[in-house]
């Protein structure tokens, strides 16, 4: 019994200490005057985490849009409401699926890569050697990757939603024969800029912050062995996914729950 209590206390202390370290890492990385060189590094990282994730985002967006149109059509057609397919696809993508699925895919594609890269840099003493060369690894390695994630993910989420809507068009209009005019015009009339689009963007910014933070911290804090890095990479994907899903509920409740 006592042993259990000791264990709980120990784990809690460890968790609090981890949060503390994560926070300090973020402060150390971000509380610095950006140098011109670091902006170049950030752009490079936007390419790595953003542009190189485009393929998976576009393909997933396309298929999710197509599946939603197919499912939506089979339900809506029973009520003769297949004209509302456009807003259904667009709203679910912009409000929910765009930010959430992008965040999940981003955690798997870019987050795990960030963790492994930084963890390996730590294991091969590259971070230490940066420090000994009087270059702060927080500013040189961590900060550009953080900003890159924060910039890239909301854009990826928008691209995901846009491609999804087109996918819905392919299935709904071109294949199942929903009227193209009603697909677009009812969508235009229903989707509100500030309520739907902006809220979706806010969501994806929050997710970008959390996922990138977890990915970078897990790498930076990894135990520098092959086992430690594999563990850190797994944790990045698991923790980011769970945090994204949990946060999504909270954000949805705040944004759409109370009218």
């Amino acid at each position, binding site marked *: 019994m006592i042993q259990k209590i000791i264990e709980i206390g120990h784990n809690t202390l460890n968790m609090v200490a981890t949060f503390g370290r994560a926070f300090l890492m973020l402060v150390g990385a971000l509380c610095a005057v950006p140098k011109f060189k670091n902006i170049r590094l950030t752009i490079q990282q936007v390419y790595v985490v953003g542009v190189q994730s485009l393929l998976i985002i576009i393909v997933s967006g396309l298929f999710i849009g197509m599946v939603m149109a197919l499912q939506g059509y089979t339900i809506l057609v029973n009520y003769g409401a297949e004209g509302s397919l456009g807003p259904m696809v667009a709203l679910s993508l912009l409000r929910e699926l765009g930010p959430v699925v992008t965040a999940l895919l981003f955690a798997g594609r870019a987050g795990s890569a960030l963790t492994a890269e930084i963890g390996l840099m730590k294991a*091969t*003493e*590259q971070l*230490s*050697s940066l*420090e*000994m*060369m*009087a*270059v*702060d690894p927080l500013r040189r390695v961590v900060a550009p990757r953080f900003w890159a994630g924060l910039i890239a993910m909301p854009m990826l989420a928008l691209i995901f939603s846009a491609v999804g809507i087109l996918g819905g068009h392919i299935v709904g209009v071109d294949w199942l024969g929903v009227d193209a005019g009603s697909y677009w015009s009812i969508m235009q009339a229903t989707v509100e800029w500030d309520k739907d689009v902006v809220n979706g963007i806010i969501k994806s910014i929050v997710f970008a912050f959390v996922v990138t933070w977890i990915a970078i911290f897990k790498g930076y804090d990894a135990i520098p062995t092959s086992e430690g890095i594999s563990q850190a990479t797994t944790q990045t994907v698991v923790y980011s996914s769970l945090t994204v899903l949990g946060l999504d509920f909270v954000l949805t409740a705040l944004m759409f729950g109370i009218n």
Partner: protein
Amino acid sequence: MQKVYLTLIIIGLGAINKTWKFILSKDNHQYLVEVKNLTFSRGTRTIYDDISLRIPQGKITAVMGPSGIGKTTLLRLIGGQLKPDSGDILFANQSIPNLPRKELYETRKKMSMLFQSGALFTDISVFDNVAFALREHTHLSESIIATLVHLKLEAVGLRGAAQLMPSELSGGMARRAALARAIALDPELIMYDEPFAGQDPISMGVLVKLIKALNEALNLTSIVVTHDVTEVLDIADYVYILANQKIIGEGSADQIKNSKSPLVQQFLQGNADGPVPFHFPANDLTKDLIG
């Protein structure tokens, strides 16, 4: 006549005294790094218990000891990556543990470290690795940087490998490339962390020669942390031997070789059993077997 002798002796003694004092006072300035009463522990495990050592300027100082006693930790403490529990570390009369972050980074430009793995940045070429610190800390033009990098690479014999990626280098070459990177900013102090570990005899010979040659040519101060006794005793001006959280022996290479301490002798000769036991502490074997 006796008076003259006496006067001469007094003058002679005075002169010796003055010279001695002069040597002593000069001696004080000749230490680039001074570790004073350092105590350091990791969790509950004590790594160093009140040790003091001094690294003379312009010389090669070897720090030897069995694996796992924290020789690398000592280098990290000198580099300011770790903070001691108590005691002080002076680098050029600046207290490293008490330096504010900004000054610590300034001071680090004067020191450099060769990591055991080389720690080359794997995503850029050998050339860019060597140019890294120059690009970070100086405003030199690319053409001057290129000249400097080629000179540094020439010094370690790798000018031809400038465009290779670190993954294309052999272990010995990687360490030499890292050495070129370490001397890029012309530091005052260079710390070698196990430079000979895992090297074939030829690369080992090359590294020994390089450490000696660079120390003389660039007027560096070198600290070599290692457990390769023969190689390092050939080039070291002064040797410290660490074991059991303490310094168990120090002196010039010859003094160390002739040391009476059984611990030092066990380490130098590589005896399996001695003051450092062969067996990890355990219960009595017969008792364990019979139960």
